[in-house]
């Protein structure tokens, strides 16, 4: 018998009258503020007065746009061949980092930890590390460990270098097994600092500097969670037909096939390439603020020519193309020139819908920089640009960029504010659109301003990380997200009116 019961889940069920009555009954026991009080307070939080109070706070951080160092460390680590990320610290940290990434990528994110507890707080975490490395090695046989720390180990002052040396002596791991490590205290910087710290340590601990340079470039993408960007940069290098090394490439391990056989390790930068990376002639960094120490290492210790390019939008993609050409002496491939034309073509089709609309952006410093420039290239006006983990240098660079375009003249830049500040800004000086990560949907909920989802993490939309955002091809994806969100909103706004056009 096919029954007629319609199954209602949380989205419909609680709208039913019986549940609405239940909620009313429950209120009697909640001792909740009256509806009037709630309404008045809500209205007050939208005022200039509230904004002023909100911006006056010195200590509390509410809805920040940053996570802690070890998160970034794990991301740098997982991009190397058969490398096991390992967290020296409490086990909850590792659980959080893993679940955070897993929710974004919808992929497994392997990492072990050494589960430090109270006794380690008293005696140090060395025993945890000896047993932890032994167990991890026995179970997973990685070709390399990449160890970072979470706060507990940093507060008690554990010495990774010594612990690892002792672990080898004790036979927990083979004498010659590469074990890279970085101290990544959560109370310094953010996840992008952690990415930098882990990467610079992997590079300096594994790199074998030789006299002679090879006719080859290194490329480092940075803390970029659009995994397709790693594939895209490889494709661009292949179009140029150049010799290159991509340092930290998580795009395979975070895009492994479902074929009935789970593999923990998959792809990644070969360790032989990692070792030889110092001997390339030059390096291109696709992020700046997540690679500051890495940049210094490459320039000063590896003596390489360094270019830092933000490869988003027209100018960014052009700079990337020219940088590769310049560093390798190769002409820009015809195929790439065609792709540029296709990108410009697409912008020509769409920019009318972006021009004159206003945008507020938040996210990580590098990502926000590139997107802001691209939005202005499309003719969009910038209202607010806000990050939590920026520095004054970033703010200055951002302001210089905004000066370059008429669309940027009215914008305000915030380098160390959070999304509760952002909420106030969007109430007092609203923009037409927000560009940000999934958390920004709460801003949409509060202010009604539609969100264009670009950034990290993206928990509530699927597969966006499978698209590239860099270069001419990636630019079309970003354009697609921006313009089609605007068109979706335009339909929503005009539904039932004469302006509900078939062709736009």
């Amino acid at each position, binding site marked *: 018998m096919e029954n007629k019961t319609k199954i209602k889940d*949380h989205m419909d069920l609680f709208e039913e009258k019986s549940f609405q009555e239940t909620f009313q009954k429950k209120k009697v026991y909640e001792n909740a503020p009256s509806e009037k009080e709630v309404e008045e307070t809500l209205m007050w939080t939208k005022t200039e007065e509230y904004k002023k109070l909100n911006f006056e706070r010195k200590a509390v951080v509410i809805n920040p746009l940053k996570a802690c160092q070890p998160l970034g460390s794990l991301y740098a680590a997982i991009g190397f061949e058969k490398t096991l990320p390992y967290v020296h610290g409490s086990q909850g940290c590792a659980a959080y980092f893993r679940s955070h990434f897993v929710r974004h990528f919808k992929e497994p994110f392997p990492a072990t930890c050494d589960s430090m507890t109270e006794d380690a707080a008293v005696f140090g975490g060395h025993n945890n590390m000896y047993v932890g490395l032994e167990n991890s090695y026995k179970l997973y046989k990685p070709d390399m460990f990449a160890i970072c720390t979470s706060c507990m180990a940093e507060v008690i002052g554990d010495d990774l270098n010594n612990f690892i040396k002792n672990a080898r002596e004790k036979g927990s791991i083979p004498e010659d097994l590469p074990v890279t490590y970085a101290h990544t205290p959560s109370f310094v910087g953010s996840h992008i600092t952690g990415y930098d710290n882990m990467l610079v340590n992997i590079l300096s601990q594994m790199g074998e500097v030789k006299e002679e340079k090879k006719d080859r470039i290194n490329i480092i993408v940075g803390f970029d969670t659009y995994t397709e960007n790693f594939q895209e940069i490889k494709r661009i290098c292949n179009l140029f037909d150049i010799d290159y090394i991509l340092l930290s490439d998580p795009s395979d391990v975070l895009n492994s096939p479902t074929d009935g056989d789970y593999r923990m390790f998959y792809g990644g930068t070969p360790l032989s390439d990692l070792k030889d990376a110092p001997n390339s002639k030059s390096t291109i960094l696709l992020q700046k603020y997540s690679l500051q120490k890495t940049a210094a290492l490459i320039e000063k210790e590896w003596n390489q020519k360094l270019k830092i390019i933000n490869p988003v939008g027209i100018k960014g993609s052009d700079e990337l193309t020219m940088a590769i050409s310049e560093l390798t002496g190769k002409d820009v491939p015809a195929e790439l020139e065609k792709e540029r034309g296709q990108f410009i073509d697409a912008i020509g089709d769409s920019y009318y819908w972006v021009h004159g609309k206003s945008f507020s952006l938040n996210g990580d410093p590098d990502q926000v920089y590139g997107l802001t420039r691209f939005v202005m290239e499309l003719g969009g006006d910038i209202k607010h640009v806000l990050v939590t983990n920026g520095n004054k240098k970033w703010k200055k660079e951002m302001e210089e960029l905004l000066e370059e375009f008429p669309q940027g003249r009215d914008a305000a830049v915030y380098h160390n504010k959070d999304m509760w500040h952002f909420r106030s800004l969007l109430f007092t000086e609203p923009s037409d659109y927000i560009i940000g990560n999934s958390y920004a949907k709460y801003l949409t909920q509060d202010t009604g301003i539609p969100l264009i989802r670009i950034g990290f993490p993206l928990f509530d939309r699927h597969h966006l990380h499978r698209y590239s955002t860099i270069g001419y091809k990636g630019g079309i994806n970003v354009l697609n997200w921006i313009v089609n969100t605007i068109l979706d909103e335009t339909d929503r706004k005009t539904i039932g009116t004469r302006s509900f056009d078939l062709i736009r």
Partner: protein
Amino acid sequence: MSSRTKEELENLIEETIDIYPEKTKKDRKKHIQVMGVEGDQKCTSMVSNKKTKPGVMTMRGCAYAGSKGVVWGPVKDVINISHGPVGCGQFSWGARRNYVNGTTGIDTFPMQVTSDFQEKDIVFGGDKKLSIIIDELETLFPLSKGIVIQSECPVGLIGDDIEAVAKKKKEEYKKPIIPVRCEGFRGVSQSLGHHLANDSIRDHIYEKDVKGTSIKETSYNVALIGDYNIGGDAWASRKILQDMGLNVIGQSTGDSTINEIANTSKAKLILVHCYRSMNYIARYIEEKYGVPWLEFNFFGPTQIYKSMRKIAERFDNNIKEKTEYLINNVYKEKTDQITDKFKVRLEHKKIMLVVGGLRPRHTIPAFNDLGADVVLAGYEFAHGDDYQRTEEYLKHATLIVDDMTEHEMDKFLKTYKPDMFGSGIKEKYQTQKAGIAFRQMHSWDYSGPYHGVDGYAVFARDIDMTVNGHVWKNITPPWKSCSTETCEGPNCNCANDK
């Protein structure tokens, strides 16, 4: 496939733990047992709630996760400060689906509020900062009914006196300001965090005489605790209790307020859903206020009706009659319809479950209602009393695993090839890569509710769509053959001769 014998299972255990270094092997052996064998020794010998061996890729989290994430997080009218560096609060922000009614940032506060410790806070201590934070929160969120300070690891290591700050500020603002020492390095899992959060409720609500509002005295007043309202679970449960004629005067901690928590001690009976995380407060209230408590299970019709009758037993004939009427004349038709619809699709399906400290045992009967069979169950952070409570639900020799490691999970998935594995987000995609259907049994995989009669329908629908998803028949390309064990037979898309 018929269920495995005790001997087969014991061999499987040996085979699985063989890879570990000697000490770890010895340790893990104590955490994996065959249970549910008639006449066999009871599960009292299961070793649980012990430290995880370093380096094994555990599913477990920490005490902070247990206190902030589980127990205190859902209390909607208090502000939880994640006190320490930024990460913990960020990673636990909005991730649990403990639904609330209210206006975020105005009268409910499911936000990421953190003291964002910097190096100077570690060196000079964070107490002064904490004090300023409380002032700032009072200014920006005047309708909050309290503040809870959730300690992250550094707080306990640098010797901060958050209790002193809380005490001072509580006097200043005349509202509960509650410090919880739930640093992540304490204990062995989330479980200690539950306990510490319960203790802080005891010390700062009941012992400090947060009175709660006055409640109309009736003999039908009950309090519902240990329900976190995942996808609306507590609301679905509450509806049944109301239909039975009971007044739910407090709900903890899903969609709860501090007032409702205070109300709990005024109930005639406390109903405990998640025993693991809130038994502590139930025991305390029983001792201090003489209010009895009762465990119940609202997953699947068998247990729902059993629990309803068990609850009704504690009340007068009026309630008992109402309950019988409700079961026989209202609910049964609904649940039978669901069972009829889905049982044909789920009969004899093999389920593997590894979840927190309650749900594996609580959901086994619901799976059974749908004709499915739980072949392996495990807990992340259960204690001995949870394993004892598991025994009654097992119909045959079943492998029970405590604090399962990633390696064991991989091995058991390969061996059992279950039709579905139910566990957490970290386990989800690895399982799917292995070609096995998966459902998150912490967050209900963004669905729910699963509790109660309304929840059973959603549960059945979801388990069906998980187990019978067409995609799982397409793991092997048509030009390749499945191994005999994995082959779905006539349903399989592979090149096997069927």
